[in-house]
């Protein structure tokens, strides 16, 4: 068995693991939603964390992002983008949430 076949198998296994992991996480999320309903805060927190986990699984197994040197640049890029995104999203939610409260925009 030559090296190419071996590498092919290894790479394919990576994809299948990623797929299996994501599938499992998706099923858990939807079954939580089905069994417990999603009105409570704790359940939503769990769903959010599972979503985050699935993001990481796909980044690692599908997009091949890890701390190896060769994908370090991509990792840096993603981390910086995440920082900017967090600033933008949290800032927006903070500012507009505060404005909504102070201006009674959505009387509940």
């Amino acid at each position, binding site marked *: 068995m030559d090296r190419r076949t071996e590498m092919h198998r290894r790479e394919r296994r990576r994809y299948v693991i990623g797929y299996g992991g994501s599938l499992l996480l998706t099923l858990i999320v939807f079954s939580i939603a089905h069994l417990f309903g999603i009105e409570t805060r704790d359940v939503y927190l769990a769903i959010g964390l599972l979503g985050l986990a699935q993001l990481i699984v796909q980044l690692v197994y599908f*997009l091949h992002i890890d701390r190896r040197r060769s994908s370090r640049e991509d990792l840096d890029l993603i981390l910086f*983008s995440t920082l900017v995104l967090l600033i933008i999203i949290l800032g927006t*939610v903070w500012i507009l949430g505060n404005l909504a409260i102070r201006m009674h925009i959505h009387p509940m």
Partner: protein
Amino acid sequence: MRRAPPQSYPGINLGQDHASADKFAEVVTFGFWVFLMSDLVYFGLMFAIYITMIDAQAGGPGPHDLFDLKSIFAQTIILLTSSLTVGLAMLALKYNLPRVRIVFWFGVTLILGLTFLVLEIRDFMAMADKGGVPQRSGFLSAYYGLVPLHGLHVAAGCLWLIVLGIQLRIMGLTDLLMSRVVRLALFWHFLDLIWIGIITIVYFGGLSYG
């Protein structure tokens, strides 16, 4: 000692005699990553807008009236599977598997992508039947600003897939096309990541909070 051959991106296996093509693929793939990050900011902002507008239902239908979790579950599984098949298509190309396998994985990905779009459009039509049109409220505007944007990306991905299929048929497997397939796969995986955000924030977030 056991240093693997430099393998900067999945799918780039051009080896020593392709040094310049390898360099080209590396530059282009990095550029594509940068583009994806810029695109990510678009989606991030639409998420932020959705979060701030979740209350702005203006007496119109809300998440509980409109969202159909069964259909969303089906879409999730389909998109996730297509993310796997696009990866397998890329591997089939990379390792020079028989042509049938390449065509098969390309075809499966395309069919899954189109099925996803059909289901999504059916959802939109069902929502519109219940009065959930974007003109109804700020909340629905934000929803229709975000979810169809993702759908549009998937549609663009499908078109890209078709064009690449034709190019592969005409030109054969060149270094350039290989690097394009790598980018398509990146794009497709990226769309799946966005979709995870959409189910978590738009659908579950909407149902939980709205």
